[in-house]
């Protein structure tokens, strides 16, 4: 068994056994929250890491999915219908977001997504007849797929874990596909890609849709997790948090956003119980990451591990200097 496979199996075993070794329901719920935000960060990372597009409006899409579920359930629809409608509406919303935002790249893209995210927040806040305004909307109950009630924290965790694993596998397949290669090409050399026959705008548009799909899934899980949705979830700070998760963990890698989400959620939910000014701690951690591991925690740690291995003795591939190091993350 290779080291990578061993690490994957160990990580999977650790994730599956969380309810057994994590003390109490509260921390099991925190783990569910980490997985939900990991899906959210993965969605953002599809754009940042693989398309070179930084979005500050994804909380608006997450909120759109959450509100749609809450509104549908309040209207008397079943969970399956509510989830399906939420996915469709969020994808449609993403298409509108992408259609408007992709008129620009770089700072322009950031500003348009920021503005669209704020519009979504404004709608949630002011469209009181639908969203409940400041009071938000509650979800009366969680679904019970195949009779498996999600009211128990460990059950909800397992349901979230299944969705999370599916999202990770889907993202892995996506970024390693010919389309994923095309997407990375548009990130690095859009002009060249056009000359090679690629439709750069359409590739970015489809990437936005995939990112929106992951965000919609995170939004649906989120509203079932909190059983409540209100305007602050759609704030710019939520979008920025998602971006920080992806960047601090290591954008352009699959593991990075997951580690970033875990870091942020642990500081928010666990360290905050012991440190009043936990925001300062989170800020200090981000500063430390930017200074010491500007490429993010996962690629930075891999760099340190490679350096340590090199000090112990050169590996054959490294000695020739002709091959990329195995597991080299995409930049």
């Amino acid at each position: 068994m290779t080291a990578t496979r061993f690490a994957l199996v160990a990580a999977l075993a650790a994730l599956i056994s969380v309810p057994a070794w994590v003390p109490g329901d509260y921390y099991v719920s925190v783990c569910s929250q980490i997985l939900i935000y990991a899906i959210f960060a993965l969605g953002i990372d599809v754009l940042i890491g693989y398309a070179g597009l930084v979005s500050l409006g994804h909380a608006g899409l997450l909120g759109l999915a959450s509100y749609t579920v809450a509104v549908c359930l309040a209207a008397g629809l079943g969970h399956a219908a509510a989830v399906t409608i939420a996915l469709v509406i969020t994808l449609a919303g993403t298409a509108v977001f992408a259609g408007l935002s992709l008129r620009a790249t770089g700072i322009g893209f950031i500003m348009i997504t920021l503005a669209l995210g704020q519009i979504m927040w404004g709608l949630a806040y002011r469209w009181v007849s639908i969203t409940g305004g400041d009071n938000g909307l509650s979800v009366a109950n969680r679904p019970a797929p195949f009779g498996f009630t999600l009211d128990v924290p460990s059950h909800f965790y397992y349901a979230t874990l299944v969705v999370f694993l599916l999202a990770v596998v889907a993202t892995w397949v996506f970024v390693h596909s010919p389309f994923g290669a095309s997407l990375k090409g548009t990130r690095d050399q859009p002009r060249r890609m056009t000359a090679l026959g690629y439709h750069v705008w359409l590739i970015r548009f489809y990437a936005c849709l995939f990112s929106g799909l992951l965000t919609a899934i995170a939004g649906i899980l989120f509203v079932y997790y909190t059983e409540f949705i209100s305007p602050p979830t759609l704030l710019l700070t939520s979008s920025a948090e998602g971006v920080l998760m992806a960047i601090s963990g290591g954008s352009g890698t699959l593991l990075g956003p997951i580690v970033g989400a875990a870091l942020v959620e642990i500081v928010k939910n666990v360290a905050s119980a012991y440190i009043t000014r936990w925001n300062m701690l989170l800020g200090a951690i981000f500063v430390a990451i930017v200074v010491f591991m500007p490429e993010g925690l996962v690629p930075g740690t891999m760099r340190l591990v490679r350096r340590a291995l090199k000090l112990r003795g050169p590996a054959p591939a490294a000695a020739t200097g002709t091959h990329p190091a195995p597991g080299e993350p995409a930049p």
Partner: protein
Amino acid sequence: MTALSIRKLEKSFGGLRVTRGVDLAVQPGERRLIIGPNGAGKTTLFNLVTGELRPDTGSVALFDQELTRLPARRRAHLGLSRTYQIITLFPKDTLLRNVTLSLLGLSPLRWNPLLRLERQRHLIEQAEHALARVGLGPMAHRPLAETSYGERRRVEIAMALAQNPRVLLLDEPFAGLSVDERRDVKTLLFGIPREVTIVMIEHDMDVALDFAERISVMHFGEVVVEGTRAEVVADPRTKEIYLGE
């Protein structure tokens, strides 16, 4: 039938007219050289032909098919390929991935989000073949960042040739190369079959004049002299442009 036909092509940036009614007719299989001092509008002409810039007036046709209103990506699908004066590659990827991306650009596979690119053997083999054609086969798995300038020039040419173009535009393929590298690239260019029509911009006359059958001299956005090597060299306007009155 003309391989590349350019008629009355005009392009201005503000008050600066970069190309002024350029006419050019390149025959199938021809090796055409475009020369001229810096700022003559040669690269702008290439950008207009490939669709990276839109002309103000005039038209471009490839084998009698009108291109003027087509986007750049469509022109690549019709058989128009180019290299860049400033090397424009994917430095974080291997040579093989660079050429694979070039092949993928013309393949419907590029839209597929489900298959693994590494398992598309036919594509990988074509890319390996294209690299072998320019003498870079043994370096296929080397990251581009670990290659020399001359090798990158050859990767550019490999990427262009991999697309089996009908017309290939080479923008200063010898720029910045050492004597040995120039020789290698020259051999490579002479080996390109006649099915591929080549239009080349080049400042290195020693190499370029050997290669070209017809030469167009551009100056201030206009084609001022056109003809065979002997005709162009003998024309007093060529000397005037390069040496002054």
